[in-house]
């Protein structure tokens, strides 16, 4: 595994393993994710990359058969440790955007205001309005929806819905945003808008993205980790992974000579 030291570690995994029942889905993975960087997780289906991503904000807790061992450290604090972070608070700090846009069947405004209301972060009225507006602006959606905030979130196009979900995720001011194939249901234009958004958001958030599109990983990330059979085969600077990967398995996968 070739790896360059990460400058400013925001989150890291150490010996992270996940069992689904008897099946070992993740085999003791180590990975550092740097602040202000986009880390892409790539690998064939079933390689453990989504399982890994879901460990980072304890989403696997919701799966009864899942058992997690090892450590996930956020700013020096063990996410799974005894007396660790409350999962609900953790998910406010570590937000998530899913493959299919999943706006709530509520108004555009209420979708974005949902998280802040849940955590009681801002007062109703002007304060909340400001947060909703700035979140939609950061998600590049404000100009398209400012006159229809009371319409249902589900009335938007697929690409707009995904940006609405991103706005909803950033409304609670998370530190990390996890994205699980955020563009796989979007057309190329909507994809480009989300990728541009990822670029901008990486200035203020730590982003970890799972993608099946190798070109997307190459375009949006600074570091890439290649997962295979529940292990990380190689992690390194994205440029190095895509021009001269150290491991033949990585090369076979990214060039399409894997089967």
């Amino acid at each position, binding site marked *: 595994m070739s790896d360059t030291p990460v400058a400013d570690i925001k989150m890291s995994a150490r010996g992270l393993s996940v069992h689904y029942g008897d099946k070992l889905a993740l085999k003791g993975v180590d990975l550092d994710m740097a602040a202000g960087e986009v880390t892409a997780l790539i690998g064939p289906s079933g390689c453990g990359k989504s399982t890994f991503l879901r460990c980072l904000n304890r989403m696997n807790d919701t799966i009864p058969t899942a058992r997690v061992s090892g450590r996930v450290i956020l700013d020096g604090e063990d996410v799974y440790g005894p007396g660790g972070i409350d999962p609900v608070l953790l998910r406010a700090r570590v937000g998530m955007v899913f493959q299919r846009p999943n706006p709530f069947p509520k108004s555009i405004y209420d979708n974005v205001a949902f998280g802040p209301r849940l955590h009681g972060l801002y007062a109703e009225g002007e304060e909340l309005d400001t947060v909703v507006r700035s979140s939609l602006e950061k998600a590049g959606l404000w100009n398209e929806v400012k006159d229809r905030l009371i319409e249902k979130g589900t009335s938007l196009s697929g690409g707009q819905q995904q940006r609405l979900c991103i706005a909803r995720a950033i409304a609670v001011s998370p530190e990390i945003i996890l994205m699980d194939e955020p563009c796989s249901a979007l057309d190329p234009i909507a994809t480009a808008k989300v990728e541009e958004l990822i670029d901008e958001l990486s200035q203020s958030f730590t982003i970890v993205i799972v993608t099946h599109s*190798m070109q997307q990983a190459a375009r949006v990330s600074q570091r890439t980790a290649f997962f295979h059979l529940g292990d990380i085969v190689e992690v390194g600077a994205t440029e190095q992974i895509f021009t*001269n990967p150290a491991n033949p398995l990585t090369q076979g996968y990214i*060039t*399409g000579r894997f089967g």
Partner: protein
Amino acid sequence: MGIGEQHIVKSFDIELGKLDEALARMGGLAESQMASAIQALESRDSDLAAQVIEGDAKVDACDAFINEQAVKVLALRAPVADDLRTVVTALKVAGEIERMADLAANAAKRSRVLNQLPPVEPMRSLIRLGRLALVMVKDVLDAYLSHDAERALTVRERDQEIDNVYSSLFREILTYMMEDPRTITPCSHLMFIAKNIERIGDHATNITEMTYFRVTGKTVAEQRIKTDTSSSAGAEDLT
């Protein structure tokens, strides 16, 4: 699951393969252009020289094909890792071969002038230099097409020998010109041809470096020692 030699998408292999095929054809053409140019010099054969001059267009056509094919693969296949290096080096190697063939054609042009002048002695050393370069070009193209980085590095060392022979030829030609000013015209042409051949060696060296990069993904780190001192011949020590 494991890694195979072939891509899952077979047409990708075909498109990449076209690059190596075209380079093999182009390299073969350039070699034969060089061999004929040397032959034309040695046997004072103006007809053969004319064929070389005419033949350069075929090499140029290969270059154009490789450029188009490389751009097509880049646009349509978005190659990465070793595939990307294959495409990028194919572009550059084609450029190097094209330059080598130009230099051979230029030597052929000058040989037609030489044939109208009395023979001069340094021609023998020039032929020797030409043969050295020809062998180097042949070996480097073989190394490139067989993805042999080690062999490329070995071939690369041979450029020093070409530089050494060129430097001594340069002095030899100077000596003849000084001894008999009537040889100045043919000897000047000889000197340019010698320089052309020395440049062919440099282009071949570039191909060795691209071969190394294509295979390993790394650049040739160590700097080669330049032993061509002809550029300071006739001057006091400039160091």
